[in-house]
């Protein structure tokens, strides 16, 4: 089957998709977007967390056919998504998921992910949560990082001043085996603090 949907603001078509394929498989193997990680394929680890019409989901649990005509944001588009949100007064997401003053769907679709310097990552424009993960030492092997970033970014959108308990609850669907989570908490606190200072 053919699946047509938007990924990081860009229209994408995937052909010859087998009905059993997940959104994760289509992103990784058909669209050249391997940032979303496959670590369990059963919705336990959160490594493949993407936003589907603004809502965080495990891409491994979404059948490819379900995304027809819908909007997906992956870690590859997170920086532009955050930039657009900042420009739009704090909400880049789908109507209804970010309060009544949110950006319209059309407005949210204005932005498009740009290629970054893929040799070293230098010069890449990062979302505040991405920069905070680097600065706080929240990245070790990095396999859980994309999913955590998408989940944490979504939480900060809903709750700009989270308590530690709020952060833990929001990120409880994302497993990390390297860090013991302390530096991930640091990173989210840092991003929240920078967000409130910069606002």
């Amino acid at each position: 089957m053919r699946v047509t949907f938007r990924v990081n603001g860009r229209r994408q078509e995937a052909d010859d998709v087998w009905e059993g394929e997940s959104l994760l498989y289509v992103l990784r193997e058909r669209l050249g977007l391997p940032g979303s990680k496959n670590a369990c394929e059963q919705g336990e680890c959160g490594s493949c967390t993407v936003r589907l019409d603004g809502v965080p989901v495990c891409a491994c649990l979404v059948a490819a056919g379900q995304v027809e005509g819908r909007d997906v944001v992956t870690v590859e588009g997170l920086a532009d998504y955050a930039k657009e949100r900042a420009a739009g007064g704090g909400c880049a997401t789908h109507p209804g998921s970010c309060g009544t003053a949110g950006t319209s769907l059309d407005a949210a679709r204005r932005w498009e992910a740009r290629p970054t310097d893929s040799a070293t990552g230098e010069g890449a424009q990062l979302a505040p949560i991405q920069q905070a993960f680097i600065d706080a030492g929240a990245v070790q092997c990095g396999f859980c990082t994309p999913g955590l970033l998408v989940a944490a970014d979504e939480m900060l959108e809903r709750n700009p001043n989270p308590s530690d308990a709020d952060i833990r609850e929001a990120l409880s669907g994302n497993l990390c085996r390297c860090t013991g989570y302390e530096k991930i908490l640091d990173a989210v606190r840092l991003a929240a603090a920078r967000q409130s200072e910069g606002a």
Partner: protein
Amino acid sequence: MGTTGTPTNLTQGSRTSGGIGESTLRPDGTLKVTGDFAYSSDMWHEDMLWGHILRSPVAHAEIVSIDTSEALAQPGVYAVMTYDDLPTDVRNYGLEIQDTPVLANGRVRHHGEPVAIVAADHPETARRAAAKIRVEYRELPVVTDEASATAPDAPVLHPGRADHHAPHVPHPNIVHRQPILRGDVAEARRRADVIVEGEYVFGMQDQAFLGPESGLAVPAEDGGVDLYIATQWLHADLRQIAPVLGLPEDKVRMTLAGVGGAFGGREDLSMQIHACLLALRTGKPVKIVYNRFESFFGHVHRHPARLYYEHGATRDGKLTHLKARIVLDGGAYASSSPAVVGNAASLGAGPYVVDNVDIEAVALYTNNPPCGAMRGFGAVQACFAYEAQMDKLAAKLGMDPVEFRQLNAMEQGSLMPTGQVVDSPAPVAELLRRVKAMPMPPERQWVTTEGADVRQLPGGLSNTTHGEGVVRGVGYAVGIKNVGFSEGFDDYSTARVRMEVVGGEPVATVHTAMAEVGQGGVTVHAQIARTELGVTQVTIQPADTQVGSAGSTSASRQTYVTGGAVKNACELVREKVLEIGRRKFGSSHPAWATAELLLEGGKVVTDGGEALADLADVLEGEAVEVEEVWRHRPTEPFDLRTGQGFGHVQYSFAAHRAVVEVDTELGLVKVIELACAQDVGKALNPLSVVGQIQGGTTQGLGMAVMEEIVVDPKTAKVRNPSFTDYLIPTILDTPTIPVDVLELADEHAPYGLRGVGEAPTLSSTPAVLAAIRAATGLALDRTPVRPEHLTGTA
């Protein structure tokens, strides 16, 4: 990710300033947060096929027949291979003992053993074709523990063993046996005022790295193969892969792809040979990615163990003796069992002075899943037992458990039970003091103005209690781990360092085969180069087999050994740079001949700080490159009969204090805080050091309260190969982990550093167990603790 065929995004460049001792940021951080970092499972190639492995559904059986014809006939299937299709007579592999079949040879010895491999144009096609391979099994009786493995009529798992441990083991189903004998235990036992005994059970833990086993094998025009792979030691893989393929090692070119964690689970081969075989058979690139279910069968686990301990002490609290027997279940194949035995035995007394010791450690061959390396490597199991013993002794003597430990703590100059002198700082008592001195978390922290915050309580969001039936306990533990490969192993690393001018700026390039698995070795290598060579810009080349071996990313050794090799190569480069400088500018200033010269801030400077020349001018038109092997001081094997010997190059120590709250009605545990104090010698990168300590601590927490691969004792089949059923700590399960880092230099090590990664994994588990015992008053002689152990319904 490349679209033209060759995987890219493996180079990690850096312009971050900062030498050793600074918390510089990871050079691969940006790639990892943007999703651009190329992990082994992200590899892609035009015209690529997908490999899949058919595994045994039973633990022990003869293979009567295999029929691959229907699988081969499936559209989209390019190859199906079994044992009979292997290209050479080398059909086994193994880290130390080559007892592991590449594909089953007429017999399977554990649940999940590879039987056949398939290559197809879609992963699902490969999976479905594998399901159409008809294998007829004739089941054999299973051996699953010491009694069944060493019974007179036990089936021998590896008949005709010719390995070097075979002559000294008491039964062919025992991989290796290491006694440690010192002093006179019988005499000391008579002097003991108190004696405590215990039998402890340690469950089977999984590394549960998040990035599944995966890689891409690309056949080359010269008949060789290029392999992009996540591993812990490229050259050890190469040594095992090439003979099976019938290729010289220089035709198997390996490049480290992004590694999604390791923790020991990537020391053994997984899909490497299978992918290469299929690539060479089909002439097409072949990618294999395990899913999580397969990953649980695709790598070795931490040895489960039974540990029998007897300690004695005098009335005033001095240890008199230790008798211990440690039985490790190595499962169906040897993997690193012999070295795990050596560790468990030699570190079995813990960080304590005990003059009279009789320890025996053995590893079994059984039909359980193969076990091998995992963070802590034999020392973890022992620490669980001896720390429980310390608490029992203190209780029996009416002493404070921390003071009792401090009274018996080893220090610099103490003798190990192996007779080895601990010849660098061993601040065991100090670490306990520090961790005890940390402020305690507040009581009843779940109370809020709006009632109980269930997220802070045992059971969490399941909302099982608002504080009713909840009791608090505090527990302590301390452990000792060896750093580096031991027992006489030639534990070297190689580093190639190049210095040149690029764009008018001096640039250092560091090339090693070190597997960066997340630990931050790449960060540290750049820091070392900046410190030694005075440059800002350092490029870390991708790790591959085009440079000499860097040894394994394990045993807490990489910063010590490959870091040492980078430091050594930088020093040699510096000498050559100074030679060029003297040649070019020596006549311009007398200090070129007379002063001690350093490279700092892009200049050649005297030890008095006077700048003599810009490095850019010295290196104009000339590049300097050095590749050199570096070794730590040698160790020696343990005597096979007495266990005496200078077996370990360095020790590392960590102590934990656990604070837990237990819902005694439901048997649910919430760890409130897990404080750690560790001596790291020198923190080359403090941010990364703390990250290692917190990560290791959390894996120990998992082992205490949730993580266990459950194997059916009747069938030896794995019951819980998924993240639904094998639980690892989430952010809700993991408490605050305050860390106190002590830096007492080891004069034998580069910069005085001490390996960091493993020690915190040791003491974390027994500290949590001690806290649960303190809260509940239960004996709890097994880990992990499950609710039924706390409610009396087990």
